């Protein structure tokens, strides 16, 4: 093609050359136009290439950061993620409080296309009044909550409806599966998952999940991608394990509720403490409070009274006075005091006893709970020494159990008048919390060595004995080892224990706390309550503190019932609660002995005159926990009572055939030691003679 054109161009050139004179035409004739065009195209491409490089350079270098930022904003989103709140567990790992995912329904009112239809559907799905939903959808706002923390059924209905402008989001709901059990102790959290009362509040720092900003990659539709390491385990709050045992808690709550209802009292409280470890096994308060629906209750109902209410304890305070007197050598258990025939008018105060007594030794002053006798012991002991012992026992200070706790009222010795000393001797003019009382008795039961109460079990499983839960600066619930501190000698502690035993086991005020087969010790209290004018009114606080068994205390149970109307006495109102809780707690732990056959005791006492108490102890030891043998082979039941023999077979799922009449097994088939066989017939021959 190029070649075909060349002659024509040459001709034209020649014509021009002939016209212009020939020089220029000869030069142009030498130009290689083809090569020139190629160079021009190459140059053009070169320029375009350079422009592209310049643009790339501009985009990458000059505008690089800005554009990268725009891209990041499109593909990556930062979200504030809050970890799930930790659970609260009892000592056996049962969950007392946990957070579960719930769905909340929200609307973007401006994006709702058909308000009437959407409102009708949502009203049906969420069981909400139609006008309320319509009002929420009609608002001129970008966002509004419609229903928060709805159940899964409702959430699924909303999701399946696929309504424009309506969305679901995840929130955590705090659930207390046992409902009202230990409600006041556990407390509750607000809508924002922050602890507002009880353990939830006290341990909020440990329980609360961490809030962190997480970067999520997302696609053009806004869907988030999975990112390695985006698990929320790291931001989840820690679990808290309490020393509470929910079975014991149940025993305490049930017995307490029964007493409060029966005696028409205002409220009641009970603590069960494991003496060996100081662990609080039950923390009961009635009327109950269900933290799942805390908004339905008044603050008075959810107040943790066992920790926060300081009350005058009354006669349950007397053992501390007597222990202090014994320790100081002011008194012995046999020291006699004249009890003024039940009425004593001092220079400053008049005191009455419920009964008229003349001379009583100290152990009987305790047994009959004589106020006059205790007042005289107090005067012998003196303010300073008595006050010192109360301080050592922890009164006037917080016990260290990390819940919102009152310090009680224990004034300085210089502020005590003689009347204060007298009244403080029988538990008035001092105010103490139930926790302080429990800790005081725990020290007596612990052989006179101070022992701290414990409500939280550290994760590390740290040593239980003599561990003090320390408040700040270490942090609540953190265990710090403390030196055992002896307050009363072994002898004094034993003497006080003996007096407490007499209160229940002899003709004292606490006889309704007796349990057959176990020796109980305790002290009753019937405290006058000050009214709004400051003087003592008709109200009474009935209380009982008991130790079971008293010889080697295993459990300490403190019961208080406030203003019972049908009977004011601690021995009548509170002691039966103790008995009920102690019985069931001992049975639950397999420590409840068989009931003592009184005829056997009488025979034993006749045979060994002179030491009836020892015999009784011996018999009680003998009838300790009975565990049925469940050997792998057929047991030897010859000579055993038929009831016992049948029980032994029944534990292996075999029902023996009984032949003959009588109460004693005289022969058996198969022989003892044979292996159990499903198709074998087991026969027991009975006889009247053993």
């Amino acid at each position, binding site marked *: 093609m190029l070649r075909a054109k060349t002659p024509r161009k040459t001709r034209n050139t020649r014509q021009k050359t002939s016209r212009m004179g020939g020089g220029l035409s000869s030069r142009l004739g030498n130009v290689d136009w083809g090569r020139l065009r190629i160079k021009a195209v190459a140059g053009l491409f070169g320029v375009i290439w350079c422009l592209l490089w310049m643009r790339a350079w501009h985009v990458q270098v000059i505008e690089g950061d800005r554009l990268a930022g725009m891209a990041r904003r499109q593909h990556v989103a930062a979200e504030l993620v809050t970890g799930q709140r930790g659970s609260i567990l009892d000592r056996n790992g049962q969950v007392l409080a946990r957070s579960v995912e719930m769905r909340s329904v929200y609307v973007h009112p401006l994006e709702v296309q058909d308000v009437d239809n959407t409102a009708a559907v949502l009203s049906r799905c969420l069981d909400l009044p139609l006008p309320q939903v319509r009002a929420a959808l009609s608002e001129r706002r970008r966002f509004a909550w419609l229903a928060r923390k709805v159940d899964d059924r409702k959430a699924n209905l909303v999701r399946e409806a696929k309504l424009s402008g309506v969305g679901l989001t995840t929130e955590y709901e705090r659930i207390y599966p046992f409902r009202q059990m230990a409600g006041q102790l556990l407390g509750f959290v607000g809508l924002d998952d922050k602890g507002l009362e009880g353990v939830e509040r006290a341990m909020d720092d440990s329980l609360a999940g961490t809030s962190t900003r997480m970067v999520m990659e997302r696609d053009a539709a806004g869907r988030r991608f999975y990112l390695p390491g985006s698990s929320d385990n790291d931001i989840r709050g820690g679990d808290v394990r309490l020393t509470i045992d929910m079975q014991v808690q149940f025993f305490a709550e049930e017995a307490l509720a029964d007493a409060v209802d029966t005696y028409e009292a205002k409220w009641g409280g009970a603590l069960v403490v494991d003496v060996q470890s100081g662990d609080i096994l039950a923390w009961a308060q009635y009327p109950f409070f269900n933290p799942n629906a805390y908004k339905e209750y008044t603050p008075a109902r959810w107040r943790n009274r066992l920790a926060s209410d300081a009350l005058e304890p009354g006669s349950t305070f007397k053992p501390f006075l007597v222990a202090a007197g014994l320790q100081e050598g002011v008194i012995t258990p046999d020291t006699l005091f004249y009890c003024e025939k039940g009425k004593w008018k001092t220079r400053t105060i008049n005191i009455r006893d419920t009964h008229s007594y003349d001379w009583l030794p100290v152990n009987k002053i305790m047994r009959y709970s004589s106020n006059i006798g205790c007042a005289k012991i107090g005067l012998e002991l003196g303010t300073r020494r008595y006050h010192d012992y109360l301080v050592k026992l922890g009164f006037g200070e917080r016990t260290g159990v990390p819940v919102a706790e009152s310090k009680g009222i224990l004034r300085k010795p210089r502020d005590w008048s003689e009347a204060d000393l007298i009244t403080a001797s029988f538990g008035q003019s001092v105010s103490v919390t139930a926790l302080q009382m429990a800790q005081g008795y725990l020290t007596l039961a612990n052989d006179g060595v101070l022992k701290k109460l414990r409500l939280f079990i550290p994760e590390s499983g740290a040593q239980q004995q003599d561990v003090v839960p320390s408040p700040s600066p270490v942090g609540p619930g953190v265990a710090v080892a403390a030196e055992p501190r002896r307050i009363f000698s072994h002898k004094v502690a034993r003497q006080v224990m003996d007096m407490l035993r007499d209160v229940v086991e002899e003709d004292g005020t606490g006889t309704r706390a007796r349990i057959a087969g176990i020796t109980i010790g305790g002290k009753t209290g019937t405290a006058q309550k000050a009214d709004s004018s400051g003087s003592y009114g008709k109200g009474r606080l009935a209380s009982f503190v008991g130790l079971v068994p008293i010889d080697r205390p295993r459990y300490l149970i403190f019961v208080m019932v406030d203003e019972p109307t049908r009977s004011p006495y601690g021995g009548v109102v509170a002691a039966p609660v103790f008995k009920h809780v102690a019985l069931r707690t001992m*049975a639950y732990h397999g420590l409840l002995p068989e009931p003592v056959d009184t005829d056997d005791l009488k025979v034993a006492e006749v045979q060994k005159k002179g030491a009836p108490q020892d015999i009784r102890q011996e018999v009680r030891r003998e009838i300790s926990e009975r565990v049925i043998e469940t050997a792998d082979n057929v047991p030897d039941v010859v000579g055993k009572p038929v009831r016992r023999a049948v029980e032994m077979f029944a534990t292996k799922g075999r029902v023996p055939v009984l032949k003959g009449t009588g109460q004693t097994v005289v022969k058996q088939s198969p022989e003892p030691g044979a292996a159990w066989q499903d198709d074998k017939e087991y026969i027991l021959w009975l006889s009247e003679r053993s």
Partner: protein
Amino acid sequence: MGGWLLAIILSVLSSLVIGLSLVWLNIERMDMAYNLRRMQGELEDRQSLKAKLEVERDRLLSPYELGRKAVALGMRDARQGQIRRLGDGGL
């Protein structure tokens, strides 16, 4: 000259293959990310359901609930002397 040309062609082809592989890997990565996200969602849903079922189980096994059921079935607390504890080899 022939050697250079071959090298350039091979380089271009290699770049093309690597580029396509990169695109393919990216598509696979995104696909996997979607799947993982979906499975993560399923896991969370199931964990949530499990937690709710555990809560319900705990509620049904609470002493109050068991006590109510026991009373309804005519049971009562064993009295002192009526309790037998099974040893370790028991049923």
